[in-house]
């Protein structure tokens, strides 16, 4: 394709910035998303109530919970794991009023796992601020066998479900929280390009 071609379903992520005109703010972050949270709290904090759910990545060298704890005066809940953050969010969502603004930071898989929870309550994609942090790892949906593999760093990726070698497209499904993987050697079986780490 000519230069200038890109697939518009590919989400673009921004830096978190407080939004005006909200009745409350809910920040949800994981792992390297801690940096995004710290950047957010360096900005002028809004007056409305703030709730922050955070979990460090167990395996990561860098941890943020302690620093965050010293900087965020109220509404902070440190969780044990990513799953615990999602569970806490699920539990507290029904109390969040209309007009709440949401902020999410972390890996792409985490961002869309949070979106899954928010969608249940009718929160629209465009009303959620998202910052991708730490890793470009992708979730890849194999269009042939419907398996979704998480933490994919390479294209070409070998599907854990059917073993096919998948080219990872930029076409992204928000519902599945994943990019489309398509068999790379369908036309000429066995002709498989080398896998490259392009999502470090």
């Amino acid at each position: 394709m000519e230069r200038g071609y890109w697939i518009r379903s590919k989400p673009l992520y921004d830096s978190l910035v407080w939004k005006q005109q909200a009745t409350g703010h809910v920040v949800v972050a994981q792992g390297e998303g801690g940096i995004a949270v710290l950047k957010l709290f360096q900005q002028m904090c809004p007056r409305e109530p703030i709730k922050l759910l955070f979990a460090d990545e167990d395996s990561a060298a860098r941890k943020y919970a302690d620093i965050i704890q010293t900087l965020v005066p109220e509404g902070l809940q440190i969780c044990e794991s990513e799953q615990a953050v999602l569970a806490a969010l699920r539990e507290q969502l029904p109390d969040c009023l209309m007009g709440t603004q949401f902020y999410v930071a972390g890996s792409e898989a985490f961002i869309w796992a949070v979106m899954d929870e928010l969608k249940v309550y009718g929160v629209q994609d465009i009303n959620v601020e998202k910052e991708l942090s730490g890793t470009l790892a992708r979730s890849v949906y194999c269009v042939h066998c419907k398996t979704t593999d998480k933490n994919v760093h390479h294209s070409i990726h070998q599907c854990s479900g059917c073993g096919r070698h998948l080219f990872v497209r930029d076409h992204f499904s928000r519902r599945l929280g994943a990019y489309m993987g398509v068999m790379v050697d369908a036309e000429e079986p066995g002709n498989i390009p080398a896998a490259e780490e392009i999502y470090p």
Partner: protein
Amino acid sequence: MNMAKNIAFKQETFRDDYTYSNSAEAIRRFPFPFAEDEYMYSVNIEQHDGGAPGSVFEHAIDIDEHYVAECEDRRITLEKDPGRYIALPHMKDAQWDMVELIMDSLSTDYPDLFQLSKDGDNWHWINKPLNIDQKFVFGDESTLPMEPFEYVGRQVQGDWVVMDQRDDDLFADMGIITSQADWSLAFDAGMSFKEWHGPVPQANELGIFDRALKYLLHLQYGSPVRRLNWTMTVNPRLDTSPEEYPLWGPDNVSVTADNVGQKVHLRVELQALFRLPRSNAMAFSIRGYLASIDDLKTYPRWAKRLRRVLTNLHPDLSEYKGLDNYRQLVIDYLAPMDDGADLGLGTHPE
């Protein structure tokens, strides 16, 4: 005279031994899409309010000689992969809208083949070509053997996407898709208009999707519109889905100078859009017509036109449509027929 009386349904296949073929009549009414020697995407939308008798535009939903075989091919595909049918839970009203749209259109336009009688909500549907006789209560899902949209979707040619309209956008929240040109319903379900069109090259830069969406959001009930889209397919295969790409991918590199005339097919999609009354959703039908290069060649005007369009095609469109492996072979095959004469405007065969 009602054309429907004359339809002789073919016994044929769209896979394995590929016995699909077109009658001379089917070729004559083929919706050839090229009015000029060059093709580029455009907002080619027009009213879908009837066309010349016998043409594919005559009725809201066209039924032709391939009806029975296409329904069978859909059945086989759905059996292998039930995920080709998707209806998100909030689409219940739209499901019944689709039952009404399809049954009303078919029974009105082809009364010899399809009959519908209504006594309040008690409906009686007869589909003669498929030997179906079904009484059910409109609005009561338990009176049909499966979800209402899947039920009617299995009895009509062409793929359907039904979109929910909200926040000034359209969302692909329901569909029955078994004959698509390499896109996946299971993957695209729930996407917005711009998202599912994400992979299409060039069109966004031309502002086509902005204008088309704006136009569609105001589509009125009772005033359907249509457009044509096209691509090419090796072998008369309906199920060129990404799901089955491992199966049909090798065909793309199987075209030679000797077999190009029979193997390569022009695939034209007659796409119609209908506003639905209860749900305010929008139905999008994608009705495919397949004609081999040899079929088309029976009309020299079409042969010349196709050769010129393929010669002038933007490389991004050629790549996106997957024609790169065999486009030149088609051009070369048709070259001896092209005397360079000015063809004038229009899609007509002669």
